[in-house]
């Protein structure tokens, strides 16, 4: 599903060169729920961003769903992200001026989906995360857990093959965190969605199929 070959990421300024990722080799098969752990600044989010085609590696190659990704700025990459990938961010990244339903519809805006179908699909996604009754609310009217569930609905509304979650429970208390984790686990087991999750929480990582540990940009386990 996702294959990383010797992925490196180096940030260069005039005076300093910082290696964020150092020759990472990783293969994530279809249907796997993988977690990535490591101390702050070890390159977890950078790795996730590269897998999600949000960032470019300095070196190495990446295959997602069997396709080699080369030009990250191209229209094809946008289309690929839109159809194959779903993102969940630690700080939710909901658009505050749009209603819950409009936020969830967002990925469908960039596909040829009619307004009626968009609304139906977004409603179904919200129902699957237990927020059918919050469609017309705005993000500011929701709790943290509810916001993250809206973000999950947005990530799954387009039925992506892969969900990339960057510390999805990081801003939530344990009860809400567990709720979110349950939804992700259900998605993986019931729909067979491949999930890659960055987390700091060992207990959450234990609920996934496999754990990858990073330290100073290198894979240590």
């Amino acid at each position, binding site marked *: 599903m996702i294959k990383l070959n010797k992925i490196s990421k180096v940030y260069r300024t005039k005076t300093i060169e910082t290696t964020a990722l150092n020759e990472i080799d990783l293969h994530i098969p279809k249907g796997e729920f993988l977690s990535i752990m490591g101390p702050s600044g070890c390159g977890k989010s950078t790795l996730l*961003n590269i897998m*999600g085609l*949000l*960032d470019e590696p300095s070196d190495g190659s990446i295959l997602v769903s069997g396709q080699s990704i080369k030009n990250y*700025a191209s*229209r094809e990459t*946008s*289309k690929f*992200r*839109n*159809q194959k990938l779903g*993102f969940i*961010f630690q*700080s*939710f*990244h*909901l*658009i*505050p*001026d*749009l209603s819950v339903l*409009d936020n969830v*519809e*967002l*990925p469908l*805006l*960039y*596909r040829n989906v009619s*307004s009626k179908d968009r609304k139906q699909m977004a409603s179904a996604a919200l129902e699957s995360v237990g927020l059918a009754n919050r469609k017309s609310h705005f993000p500011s009217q929701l709790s943290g857990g509810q916001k993250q569930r809206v973000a999950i609905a*947005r990530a799954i509304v387009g039925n992506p093959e892969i969900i990339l979650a960057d510390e999805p429970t990081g801003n939530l208390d344990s009860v809400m965190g567990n709720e979110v984790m349950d939804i992700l686990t259900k998605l993986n087991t019931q729909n067979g969605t491949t999930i890659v999750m960055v987390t700091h929480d060992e207990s959450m990582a234990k609920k996934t199929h496999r754990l990858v540990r990073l330290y100073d940009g290198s894979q240590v386990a």
Partner: protein
Amino acid sequence: MISNYLKLAWRMLGRNKFFTFISLFGISFTLGILMVILSFLQSELGTNRPLTHKNDFVVVNMLTLKTEFFDTIVGVDTSFIDSKMVLDSTLEIKSSGSMQWNSEMNNGIAEEYLSDLPSAEKMTVFIEHSEYDVYINGVKLKLHSLHGDVNYWDLIDHQILDGRVFDKAEFDQAAKVVVISDKTALNYFGKTTGVVGNEMLLDGLNYKVIGMYKHFGKIVPYVSPDVVLPYTCAQLDNQDSFYHGFFCTLFKKKSGVSSEKLKEEIKYAASTIPMDHPSKPEGYEQLEFNPATYDEVFAQAIYYEREASKSLWIAKWILISLMSFFIVLPTLNLINLNVSRILDRSSEIGVRKAFGAHKGNIVAQFVFENVLQTLLGGLIGLGLAVFLIKLINKSGFIRNAILELSPNFFLYSFLVTLLFGILSGLLPAIKMSKLQIVNALKENKL
């Protein structure tokens, strides 16, 4: 997608009210002023009444008597032939200057030499620059008159509100009849109804009012006189000569014929006018007409060049530069404001791109939002423009000009607003569409 953009655009306006106020104030003020300028240009230079045939007009408002002075220049060269020095002289005749006398023409010249040009459908000759001082209850009223022929009414498309215009018999008999504007009726008679049939005292002579036309109020020439009389009523015996007099000539070209062809025919006609009339002023050997289209005549008032087409070209560029300057400065300001506004939304751009938006989607969204905001500003600007136009018309601030609110005015205003919206939104949108997703998401302003 449009409804999503629309919702977002509407909510963005309410998000930062101070910013929205500043933007809308700038947009509406700029567009309001631009609309007033557009209304002025449209009113003065559009093909609206009474200038319906304006684009077919060629004007000869000047007859030039000219003479050129020549100097003979003698040059002496030396050369050696068979080792002997030989002197060789050359004579060269060069123009060293000219003398010109420009004035309106005698009507006799127009009628005899210009009335039958192949490319002209119709011609009218008239005297434009005369005024009558009349006194109403002891108050002086200055009436700008035009003495014309019957063709004047066919070429200048006045809207007759009451009565009729003078006919050929009245013209030939120099009948004391006058056609007046509704503005004159109001000023002179204190009313605009029932004035036809009344008498009007002009220069001590009684004229019968036979018709009334609508005063459109234009500063362009020939179309906004207060009173129109047959030129046969005018004192013509004191015209300067066989050549010079008081008259302008206005042609309407035949359809399908170019103005340039008619101009050429007019210039050729000048060469057929005899230069041996006893009234010819001493020393002038050539006669020239300098025909111009109606727009060129207007342009010559802005920037005079003897070659009328050059005047029009320069005047156009002066106007375009002024308008562009007036658009560019506020556009730059709005671009600046928009960049800071959009920067605030970099996380949103990151999210949209993460979920599949490409650069084109981002540009379209922000341009759409900006156009919507500009259209709102344009609507306020339109209100401001209508208020200013009414104020200008009421105050008579621009001489007698009456600015119009025609359908074209609204169309052009809409186009200018749209252009303003696209221009001021495009640059920030393109800049922001290039944001790297990772960097945009790091802003975390959502």
